[in-house]
């Protein structure tokens, strides 16, 4: 979306007013055989496949099947994306006959089918798009190949856009269609159901062609915006013929063999796997401070837990606030409540799986005093958690109130125990905590330490924001939107290395997770998708 000039908005309305939607069914017998075999295999052996032993094999098959149907690259190139998985799958097929002898033949047939098709250099959808683009009118201006997943933009560009002949052909993801750029033609790779409605109902081209394999069942018309219908507008002006009134796909060739549901092809987040991982992380620990968090799916299928309760905030880049002048970059970078983050924004995550990105920066500012000040901090936090565990939350709150704390309540107490919150706002509450944990004599010293850490965190947060703003000013938000990610560094150490990743989805489930796991990218993301 970002800021659109009035003229750009006019182009958008022009496209909307005259968009043609067409669907081209594409065939490839060996890919069809593999896709249908995989679909039947999953349906026929549902019970057997619930055994965890099948997970890596089935995830590999599903992932590669999806990629072959969603990326317009030669199958052999897609095979090369996961050679480790291929080796493991081959080994698994050899082994499975001893565990599931009844399934052995079909599992082997499935694997061989994949092996055959993935060895081919065929690229049915890619070839068709190139043909259509080359035979189209040059007056159409720029055209775009629309991929479901921005992760594959770079490799698709390498194939399509290397030649000068295709300099007017771009590779984009649905996110790019939120801006005001309009194209002569958009070629969608995959069934229409894989793409958000706005791709079609808020068209950024007058001609949108969907290239979809013929065995995939797809959507029919585009739904209206309001499920209950819309309000009538009476006018004396004559309205021109309205194509939007019949926003349906016109199939350009015959198809009668839909076997595979479009939605089922797409890998989904393995919630059970994530919960199991959290359980493993917490088991064995004597006491773990837990917080409520949501799972954020980030660009590149990365996953991260972010605390969404209380007043926790995250530094984000909001491309919708961007505009092309001096203050444009500044307006996009802000710390907002984590609960206010929306898909499409970019979250700042520390690289290397280390969690909080402010802390190492703050430590650099504190210099040699950092370790000492942190140990003061840890000391009283640890004692407070121990005291609350022993007395119970309710009793601890009562005691804190009795010791002079005005703000002692459940939420504040959770914040005070948290390693992510540095101190209480008022000294009176801090003093009450010190009395509760028996450190009353050290209250002044510990408060001073907390104040110093707090100031360093503020300064670190400011520096990080400044660097981000400079980065966006130097490049452009459009580059970031196109790639969905970037990295930047503050200072010279590895600790200052950050990732900026687009938020693709926020799962509605609330997870209770150890505080230490918040903000860390979950590793082994392939296992976390199914």
């Amino acid at each position, binding site marked *: 979306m970002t800021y659109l000039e009035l003229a750009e908005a006019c182009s958008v*309305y022009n496209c909307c007013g005259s968009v043609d939607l067409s669907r081209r069914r594409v065939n490839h017998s060996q890919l069809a055989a593999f896709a249908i075999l995989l679909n039947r295999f999953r349906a026929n052996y549902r019970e057997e496949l619930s055994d965890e032993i099948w997970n890596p094999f089935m995830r590999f098959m599903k992932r590669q099947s999806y990629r072959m149907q969603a990326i317009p690259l030669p199958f052999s190139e897609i095979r090369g994306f996961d050679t480790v998985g291929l080796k493991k799958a081959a080994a698994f097929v050899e082994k499975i006959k001893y565990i599931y002898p009844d399934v052995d033949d079909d599992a082997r047939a499935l694997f061989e089918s994949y092996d055959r098709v993935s060895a081919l250099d065929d690229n049915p959808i890619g070839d068709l798009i190139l043909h259509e683009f080359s035979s189209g009118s040059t007056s159409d201006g720029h055209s775009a190949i629309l991929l479901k997943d921005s992760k594959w933009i770079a490799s698709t560009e390498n194939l399509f856009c290397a030649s000068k002949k295709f300099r007017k052909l771009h590779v984009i993801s649905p996110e790019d*269609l939120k801006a005001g750029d309009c194209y002569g033609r958009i070629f969608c790779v995959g069934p229409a159901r894989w793409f958000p409605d706005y791709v079609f109902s808020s068209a950024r081209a007058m001609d949108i062609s969907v290239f979809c394999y013929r065995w995939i069942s797809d959507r029919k018309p585009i739904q209206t915006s309001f499920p*209950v219908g819309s309000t009538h507008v009476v*006018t*004396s002006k004559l309205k021109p013929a309205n194509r*939007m009134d019949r926003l349906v796909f016109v199939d350009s060739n015959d198809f009668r063999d839909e076997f595979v549901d479009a939605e089922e092809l797409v890998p989904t987040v393995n919630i059970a796997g994530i919960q199991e991982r959290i359980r493993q992380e917490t088991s064995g620990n004597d006491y773990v401070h837990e917080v409520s968090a949501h799972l954020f799916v980030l660009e590149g299928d990365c996953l991260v837990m972010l605390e969404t309760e209380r007043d926790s905030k995250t530094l984000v880049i909001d491309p919708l606030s961007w505009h092309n002048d001096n203050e444009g970059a500044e307006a996009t970078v802000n710390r*907002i*409540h984590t609960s206010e983050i*929306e898909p499409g924004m970019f979250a700042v995550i520390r690289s290397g799986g280390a969690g909080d990105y402010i802390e190492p920066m703050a430590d650099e500012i504190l210099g040699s005093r950092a370790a000492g000040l942190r140990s003061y901090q840890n000391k009283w936090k640890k004692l407070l958690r121990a005291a609350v565990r022993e007395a119970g939350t309710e009793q601890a709150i009562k005691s804190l109130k009795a010791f002079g704390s005005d703000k002692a309540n459940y939420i504040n107490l959770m914040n005070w125990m948290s390693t992510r919150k540095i101190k209480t706002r008022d000294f009176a509450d801090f003093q009450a905590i010190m009395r509760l944990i028996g450190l009353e004599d050290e209250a002044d010293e510990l408060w001073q330490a907390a104040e110093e850490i707090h100031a360093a965190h503020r300064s670190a947060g400011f520096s990080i924001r400044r660097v981000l703003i400079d980065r966006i000013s130097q490049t452009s938000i459009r580059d970031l939107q196109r790639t969905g990610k970037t990295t930047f560094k503050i200072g010279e150490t590895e600790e200052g290395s950050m990732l900026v990743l687009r938020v693709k989805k926020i799962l509605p489930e609330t997870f209770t997770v150890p505080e230490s796991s918040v903000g860390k990218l979950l590793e082994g993301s392939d296992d976390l998708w199914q």
Partner: protein
Amino acid sequence: MANKISVKSEKPIESFYFNHGGSWELMPNWAEFFVDLGAALASVETDSESLVLAVATPTRAFAANLIALGIVSARSDIGHQGYTTDQHFERLCNLKPGAIVQCLEKEKKYRCEFLGIETREDGEFVKVKLHRVKNEGLRLIPKKYCHKVILSDGVQQIDRATSRKLDIIQRPNFTKHFLDTVSPMDFALQQRLECQIIGRQNILSLEARSDVFAVKDEGKLETGNLNDVLRVKNMIRTGDPFRTEIFTARNGDHLETKNDIPHVTIYDGAYGFLKFGSDNKRPIRVAVLDRTEPNFSVASQNISDMFVNRRTREVEFRLNNYLPTGIEILAFMEAQR
């Protein structure tokens, strides 16, 4: 269910142009539609009911500001049908010291500088300094004779810091095009909050400041921007009378604590509507929902549920412009709390 309410726009704004790559073109139907929609909403009288309107768009660009333009423009005449002494005195109170006005003395008009309102034991006085070749001097004009101080569209103010003359109305000929009978000066000197827009403040402000608009007046193009009519509180000089306010929907802002309730509240985006849109003490709520927004489907479902569960009457629009392709609207009345 009672009958439908018909909401009508009186007359279209004609000869409205925009700059398209260097050439001036008549505003397209989609943009005129939004202004027309705003003008129709301006006429709605709500009593025990409030009106909810959702507008689904392919892009949010300019929609909220153009709707606001229609609202402010169509309601510009309210309270200007002839001024009583008190009303005229109130207009003078809204002037800043340093404003250049005219003064009637012995049936002649003299240019003079407005110095402020002075309160004495025997009442309130308008204090002016006459600029005459002879007999330049201060005058204290009693409140009951305040109509001797004349405001015209060319009234200027002196910036005390820079001593520069500043126009109260920067482009009166552009502004005048959107007003009915009221003069631009009177319009600018009366404060009445007509419209609040809740959305991304910086983007909305940029749109309002964008100098891409023009009107044709007696064959001549008069350029201007939307803020010339909207008079957004934070986009005019501090203390000047305003007609529109823009708020951010984020960062924990609490809308309910802010100022008066305007005639129309526009939520520019699903986020703002989902956060604040349930406040049905507001007479008219408009949600501009961009289909490319992440929360679009949540907000459209939410409004559809409101339509099913809370509507007291349906609404029909009678407008000068047809519904543009790509825009869908849903409107209904619901009971006020």
